[in-house]
């Protein structure tokens, strides 16, 4: 949120610098003194966690690229050598492989937080749409990265997913095939494909980095949303980012890192597929091809549609539709907290996504297909029907007048007689008194 700069250069040198390239001023205004809603809960710490994930993936990835050989003949062996012979290679490789999963865990929590609290609503539409682009770029990066170890799942994952584009043959005969061959650089997935995937896998994270900078920029223009969905009105609604939000983010980050380290150090194979420890064999398809867990809901949607082109369209639409929800949601309030009816639909949507994830890992047959269709139908209905209709019909529950009211009303009521609106006696100043 734009606010008056409080940065004061302390030395002559700092002053000189400030007049020429005021980076310290920007950092101070945006990351030290930036007004942060005081009522943010721990779901708001995932932005910082995601930044950590991106940096960790880039750093470990650069290291792995120093040892990795992007050729069909050597890729598998070079990854094996990284794990066996490179100093701490086993650690860095596991960090990168598990890191991808951790990144998606964090980004999904981040997205559902945005959905629940209406963080996509005006004036944060562009912030949200940038997020959708980041998600898409992450998916492309993860998909291409998974090809690089050149194991069986790598090879067949690439084969199956790139073949999705061949469905365009249904639109213009030959178009899909042409696109697929263009992607492959040949008539099948080969070392040529691996080379270009490596190149793009190295490029895209920096594209994500650029998008993230825009995302944060947009965030700092509109300011953070908060659990009430009510904008900051007075100074007492906010606290300075440093040290309040920073320390909270740091604590949450370490909790997240415990989980991350647990996977890296105790179960590096858990989040991957055993099949990928078999070298790619273009003659043998593994019996059960499944994508990485973070793609499973989309994979379920793909397979739920009986038509090849239809499935591909549904899969891409399931992500693209996210970009339109700022306008699909017709509710007068942002936060689901004050939406007694929509609340139930939100949880139903979350359950649908989890169910689709489960079904994506199951074979596409019998009862699994039936349920995949039900949940796919709800996935789209949630955005296209529930959001506009429930939003315009529902009467929101009574809302507090401001963030401060929400905070004090919630916690201060019990101790209202102790003075200072619930502030412990002796506290000379509290933000709400300002």
């Amino acid at each position, binding site marked *: 949120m734009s606010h008056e700069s409080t940065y004061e250069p302390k030395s002559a040198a700092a002053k000189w610098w400030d007049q020429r390239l005021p980076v310290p001023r920007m950092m101070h205004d945006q990351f030290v003194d930036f007004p942060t809603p005081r009522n943010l809960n721990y779901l708001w710490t995932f932005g910082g966690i995601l930044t950590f994930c991106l940096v960790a993936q880039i750093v470990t990835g650069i290291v792995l690229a120093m040892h990795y050989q992007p050729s069909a003949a050597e890729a598998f062996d070079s990854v094996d050598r990284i794990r*066996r012979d490179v*100093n701490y290679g086993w650690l860095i490789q596991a960090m990168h492989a598990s890191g991808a999963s951790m990144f998606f865990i964090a980004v999904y929590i981040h997205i559902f937080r945005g959905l629940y609290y209406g963080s996509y609503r005006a004036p944060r539409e562009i912030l949200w749409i940038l997020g959708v682009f980041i998600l898409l770029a992450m998916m492309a990066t993860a998909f291409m990265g998974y090809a690089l170890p050149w194991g069986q799942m790598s090879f067949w994952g690439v084969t199956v997913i790139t073949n999705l584009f061949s469905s365009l043959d249904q639109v213009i005969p030959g178009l899909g095939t042409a696109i697929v061959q263009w992607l492959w650089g040949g008539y099948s997935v080969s070392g040529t494909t691996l080379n270009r995937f490596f190149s793009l896998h190295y490029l895209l994270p920096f594209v994500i980095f650029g998008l993230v900078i825009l995302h944060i920029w947009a965030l700092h223009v509109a300011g953070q949303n908060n659990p009430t969905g009510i904008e900051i009105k007075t100074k007492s609604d906010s606290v300075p980012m440093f040290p309040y939000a920073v320390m909270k983010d740091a604590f949450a980050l370490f909790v997240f890192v415990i989980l991350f380290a647990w996977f890296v150090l105790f179960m590096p194979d858990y989040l991957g597929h055993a099949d990928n420890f078999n070298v790619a064999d273009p003659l043998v398809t593994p019996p059960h091809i499944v994508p990485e867990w973070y793609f499973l809901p989309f994979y379920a949607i793909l397979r739920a549609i009986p038509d090849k082109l239809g499935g591909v369209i549904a899969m891409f639409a399931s992500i693209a539709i996210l970009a339109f929800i700022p306008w699909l949601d017709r509710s007068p309030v942002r936060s689901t907290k004050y939406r007694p009816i929509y609340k139930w639909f939100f949880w139903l949507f979350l359950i649908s996504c989890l169910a689709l994830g489960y079904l994506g890992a199951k074979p596409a047959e019998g009862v699994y297909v039936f349920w995949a269709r039900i949940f796919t139908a709800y996935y789209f209905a949630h955005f296209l029907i529930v959001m506009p209709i429930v939003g315009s019909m529902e009467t929101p529950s009574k809302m507090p007048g401001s963030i401060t009211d929400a905070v004090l009303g919630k916690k201060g009521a019990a101790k209202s007689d102790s003075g200072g609106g619930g502030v412990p006696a002796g506290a000379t100043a509290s933000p709400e008194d*300002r």
Partner: protein
Amino acid sequence: MSADVEDPQRRDILVVAATAFSAVGAASLIWPFVHQMNPDAGAQALASTEVDLSPIAEGQAITVMWRGKPVFIRNRTPEEVEAAKKVKVDELPDPVSRNENNPGTPATDANRTVEGQEKWLVMVGICTHLGCIPKGQALADSKGDFGGWFCPCHGSHYDTSGRIRKGPAPRNFDVPPYKFVSDTKILIG
């Protein structure tokens, strides 16, 4: 922020401890990322090289690879050995033998070769100045002012014992660890 607010940056012992602990963790994470660039277990264990000396005629030299580096092996003529032996150590720019088999000894020709096999000179053929490969292996090469090797990059002259005599190179050629397995076979490394 108004002036009466308690300074949120108060140096609380907990905050200091937490920050210090986080910093220590972040710092120790740097090591794996530095160490990964060191030679890996495969490179460290790289095979030693066995060389058959029998095809090398007197006055000839061959170059073999050991750990990715060229190793010069010269079958020196008696005159060359004699010339190398005559040089006084205190006249040399680098008085140390630079022989991994006799570390720290003076740079006499005897200390740079194996006793009983003095005609064989085995050394890493990399100029100690900036890493070029000196001339002097092929018969037609310029062997420099001292009949040994000559580095064309910056004009370093080495004698018939591979010792630096003139030019910018600071050290004699390094002698790698090696031993005679038989009279005509050596094992380097």
